[in-house]
């Protein structure tokens, strides 16, 4: 199968959905013909679809989402880009109080088919305001869906599903994944939300990981294979809805859980994964649950500092070894 990058996969999904449905349009800062998106995901789309459907906005994150909400509840299917995930903090009211709640508050009258694409994560030395991973905030907001694609294949299939769906989605991308290549079929496909993907099968320990951490978990699995430890890597692909069953089934098989995420440890993604297993599958556990995540600090700028806080395959190997 042909290989394309995560960035290209996302762009293809946007292009195909825009061709498929005139209600789909894009808005965000510098996504249009002059820049093509800070990470070039939307590059070339303004040329094909025009400035009306690939709409550059002022630097007004809360209104970007607010405008998208207004368009979504009146028949459009906006895909908004927030240039850096950290800046969702400016739009939290429109995301969490409006987009996520309108349908419920209005007793089911509203449909909010809105996708918010935004890159999270560190690793490129752009410090505390441009490097966070905030998926857990959004998992805590009922009414939102949260997608976390780790491969080009997942990125394309999930983005298409997000755009065709009728609910607001925070579509979490990762800066370090954009250039990563992988197999992506030419044919149309979608990946339904709430279906985890076992990225590697194994017997001895379950590692649940998302985004960049999937790749690091796979590396850790390879390292450990040499030592005779068989690691199963479960990629939930969407955090809301979450495929609990896949996680629990894996833990039932392996008896061990390491939850890995790039966000800050406390009250992060790994807390929820750990809690689910502690509630629903504790009897199958042969060892304590382990969490591998960032320490509770902002992301520092200097490379040695940043590398220190971002979880890597060594940290995953270490955590696994502690419970094997």
């Amino acid at each position, binding site marked *: 199968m042909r290989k394309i990058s995560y960035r290209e996969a996302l762009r293809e999904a946007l292009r195909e959905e825009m061709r498929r449905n005139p209600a789909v349009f894009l808005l965000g800062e510098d996504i249009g013909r002059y820049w093509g998106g800070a990470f070039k995901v939307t590059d070339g789309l303004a040329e094909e679809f025009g400035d009306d459907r690939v709409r550059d906005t002022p630097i007004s994150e809360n209104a970007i989402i607010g405008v998208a909400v*207004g368009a979504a509840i009146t028949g459009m299917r906006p895909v908004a880009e927030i240039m850096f995930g950290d800046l969702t903090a400016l739009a939290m009211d429109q995301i969490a109080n409006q987009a996520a709640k309108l349908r419920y508050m209005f007793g089911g009258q509203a449909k909010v088919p809105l996708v918010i694409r935004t890159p999270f994560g560190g690793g490129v030395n752009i410090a505390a305001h441009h490097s966070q991973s905030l998926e857990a905030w959004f998992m805590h907001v009922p009414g939102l869906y949260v997608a976390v694609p780790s491969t080009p294949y997942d990125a394309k299939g999930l983005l298409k599903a997000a755009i065709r769906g009728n609910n607001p989605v925070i579509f979490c991308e990762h800066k370090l994944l954009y250039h990563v290549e992988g197999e992506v079929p030419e044919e149309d496909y979608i990946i339904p939300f709430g279906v985890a993907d076992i990225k590697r099968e194994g017997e001895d320990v379950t590692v649940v990981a998302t985004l960049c951490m999937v790749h690091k978990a796979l590396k850790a699995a390879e390292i450990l294979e040499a030592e005779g430890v068989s690691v199963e890597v479960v990629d939930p692909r969407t955090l809301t809805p979450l495929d609990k069953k896949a996680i629990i089934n894996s833990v039932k098989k392996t008896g061990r859980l390491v939850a890995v995420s790039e966000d800050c440890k406390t009250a992060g993604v790994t807390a929820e994964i750990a809690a689910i297993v502690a509630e629903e599958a504790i009897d199958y556990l042969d060892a304590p649950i382990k969490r591998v995540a960032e320490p509770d600090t902002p992301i520092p700028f200097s490379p040695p500092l940043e590398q220190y806080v971002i979880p890597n395959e060594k940290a995953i190997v270490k955590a696994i070894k502690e419970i094997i």
Partner: protein
Amino acid sequence: MTLTANLTKNKLVEMYKMMVKIRLFEEKVFELYAQNLVPGTIHLYTGQEAVAVGVCSALRKDDYITSTHRGHGHCIAKGAEIKRVMAEILGKKTGYCKGKGGSMHIADFNIGMLGATAVVGAGIPIAAGAALSIKLRKTGQVVACFFGDGASNQGTFHEGINMAAIWQLPVIFVCENNLYAMGTRQSIAMKIENIADRATAYGIPGVVVDGNDVLAVYEAALSAVERARRDEGPTLIECKTYRHRGHSRVDPAKYRPKEEVEAWLAKDPIKQLRERLLQSTILTEVEIQRIEEEVSTEIEEAVKYSMESPYPAPQEALEDVYA
């Protein structure tokens, strides 16, 4: 208040009746509240009727509005059924939002009422978004976005109106300046007198209008709506008005000087229109009486309907989270 040539007798009577309906509806809500029949809080629209009615009278049926915590008047003026508004306020299953929203979150998408948000100012970008949708879908609709003087200090005001301005969206921003945001006088929260002047910052027209004169509001709204429909972009209309009661629930509104309250009560928008309609013999005292009776009957029916309606079943709380 002069009567305008644009308005037929029928339309004038309809507007009058609508204002009376909102007034009596709100007084009924207050009464029910005093009897402990209304859960939560309420923000009554009494005193501001000319704004909702003036604006909505300038709209087509398929036009949209967005609303606020003080939204009963907007809903009714846009054509909502008062029995379903009342049922929602009482938390009943027959309410517009099945009891999930309550007084602060009424919506009726069938009549273009895109709902009330209780986060002050949050409706402004949403209204701009609905207008963008109109422009993209080319339906020729217009959006009227209601908000208060207090809301005009929110970042959403700035960001939302700016976006509507640059994209020349078919939306009219209606600021109901009732002089207070809760207990905070306008002059405590901003240095300027006319919020309409803020339009300068976005390169769009800003208009100040007597918000207690329904015909003045109507005219200003109509010309803004026509402008929007001609694809010439948004207008900011500031309606100077006053709420007759406290901000919410039990607020005695002691922060307002007695003379101020009296001066504004004397400018009651309904009284003003009534006098004008009588003077110009469009309505007689008897007809006015009849209108009030009709409205009262409708409201009594709404009360009966909503009081007799069941509460939603508890587990319904789990529905409507996702589509």
